[in-house]
């Protein structure tokens, strides 16, 4: 509390409960001004987030259009075509088809079946939506109309999924690759980083320019350490989404030199943040090395501060967030920041990779409290080093 002065006390006592009526139209003016205000600004990170989600969604569905290339490839997602067919009964198994003796209907067969006709064919109940193709090599024309030793081709793959009778679901193994969901892999990252932090202080109005210059001169480069755990899913083609939690602790040293250089004092401050990363990745293999690009946002969950800064007159002003009565110079939550990094990983063991990820991150909204006279913005740059572990085998999303 400030030293008491009788004059101060007089004004404080008499004016603290004093009221002066406002003009009658003030409330109407306030309503009018609020109604005229433009709609709230879209957060700067919203387009980024929407774009990331749209991109991820597009990639997920786009993979289903890659049917031909997948059918011809021998990726891990395909089983040998023969494995799609299982015999019903030993006696019903047709003999292998000699080369050159194919069915007259064979030209109608979808390209996916052209390479190798199955030596064994399952019997599938006939359905109107499924074109029936009969292997007639070792059976007579009279038996061609029977349902024995028939297999199916799917002329309308796009619509079959919806029209496939429920009882056919037991034959799902018969479905070619396009009916498969994409294979995903779950991975977990444990990362440590040493970050270099750059911050800039700018005055909200020219009135405080001198003070911002003083603070910029007092505050040296900050160093931060971070620990992150990220869970992610990714496809064989290298697209992935990662999220998790990251704890960072930033240290800062303020040096105050009294104008006549007779004294030099310092103050050490710490800033702790907890963020949730949401990162879209695209990786590519180069031999053993796997490199990729990571883009995303960090959503800040907490921002705690401990320390002091100097007023222009040289007095310490404490801003510790947990201390009641401390000056609230910073926000408690910082919103979102943009993240971009280049991930590099090398396999070092069974499902284990060593990885490094240099990155930059910008916290575009000011970290200062709304009512504080200076705006402080922060940029990070650093190197994550750690391990990536694949969890289990690949899986299909429901």
């Amino acid at each position, binding site marked *: *509390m400030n030293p008491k002065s009788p004059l101060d006390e007089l004004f404080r006592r008499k004016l603290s409960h004093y009221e002066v009526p406002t003009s*009658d139209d003030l409330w109407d003016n306030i309503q009018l001004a609020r109604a005229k205000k433009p709609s709230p600004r879209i957060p700067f990170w919203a387009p980024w987030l929407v774009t990331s989600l749209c991109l991820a969604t597009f990639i997920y569905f786009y993979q289903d259009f890659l049917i031909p290339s997948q059918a011809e490839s021998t990726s891990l997602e395909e089983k040998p075509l023969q494995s799609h067919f299982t015999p019903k009964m030993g006696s019903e198994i047709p003999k292998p088809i000699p080369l050159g003796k194919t069915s007259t209907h064979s030209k109608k067969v979808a390209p996916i079946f052209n390479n190798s006709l199955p030596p064994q064919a399952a019997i599938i109940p006939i359905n109107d939506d499924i074109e029936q193709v009969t292997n007639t090599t070792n059976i007579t024309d009279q038996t061609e109309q029977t349902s024995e030793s028939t297999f199916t081709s799917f002329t309308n793959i796009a619509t079959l999924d919806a029209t496939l009778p429920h009882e056919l679901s037991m034959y799902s193994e018969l479905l070619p690759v396009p009916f498969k969901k994409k294979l995903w892999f779950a991975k977990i990252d444990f990362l440590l980083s040493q970050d270099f932090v750059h911050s800039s202080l700018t005055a909200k109005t020219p009135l405080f320019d001198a003070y911002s210059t003083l603070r910029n001169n007092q505050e040296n480069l900050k160093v931060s350490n971070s620990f992150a755990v990220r869970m992610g899913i990714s496809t064989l083609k290298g697209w992935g989404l990662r999220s998790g939690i990251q704890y960072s602790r930033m240290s800062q040293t303020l040096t105050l030199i009294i104008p006549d250089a007779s004294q030099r004092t310092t103050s050490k401050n710490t800033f702790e943040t907890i963020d949730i990363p949401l990162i879209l990745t695209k990786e590519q293999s180069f031999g053993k090395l796997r490199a990729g690009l990571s883009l995303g946002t960090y959503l800040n969950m907490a921002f705690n501060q401990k320390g002091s800064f100097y007023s222009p007159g040289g007095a310490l002003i404490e801003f510790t967030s947990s201390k009641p009565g401390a000056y609230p110079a910073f926000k408690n939550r910082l919103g979102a920041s943009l993240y971009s990094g280049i991930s590099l990983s090398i396999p070092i063991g069974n499902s284990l990779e060593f990885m490094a990820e240099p990155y930059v991150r910008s916290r575009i909204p000011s970290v200062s409290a709304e009512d504080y006279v200076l705006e402080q913005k922060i940029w990070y740059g650093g190197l994550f080093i750690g391990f990536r572990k694949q969890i289990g085998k690949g899986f299909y999303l429901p």
Partner: protein
Amino acid sequence: MRYLNIASPVEDNELIQGCLRQDRKYQEAVFRRYAGKLMVVSLRYARHRMEAEDILQDAFIRIFDHFDQFQGKGSLEGWMRRIVVNTALKNIDKKSFTNEIIGLETTAEDASGALPSVFSQLHEEELLQLIQQLPDGYRIVFNMYAIEGYSHAEISALLGIQESTSRSQLVKARKMLQSQILESQKVAV
């Protein structure tokens, strides 16, 4: 004048919840309850009533737009007073302080003695007028230190001026107020 259809008295908590829902009835209730007190705050920082109403209007817009930032740690009135003060400070001109000599030391006993009895007989409206007649720099520092309770370090940080400037402005403001009061009493006699 229109009045609200909200049963009186309404607790602050209820008003807060209503304002968080952006319910206009509750916003008006907050306005009706606190506008008079906040007008005094605004008048203390402004040079005239018109400016004070502009400050108060801007402050209430900020209050209702950012009501979700009220964390309930202190009183609603205290939070709103701070917003009014900050809104008023946005409009000040740094030149208000440039005429002061940085590092000017002033004696602490300038206004620390017992006040003549005539001082306590002054009405609130007269005190308000006395404050409004102070030069900008004096008025702002006196308000922040003597009435709002900011320290010189905080004033220094908030206004971007030297602490010594803040001290000297305060002492000069007190002296000027004292002399104005005594002068007005002489005229009255």
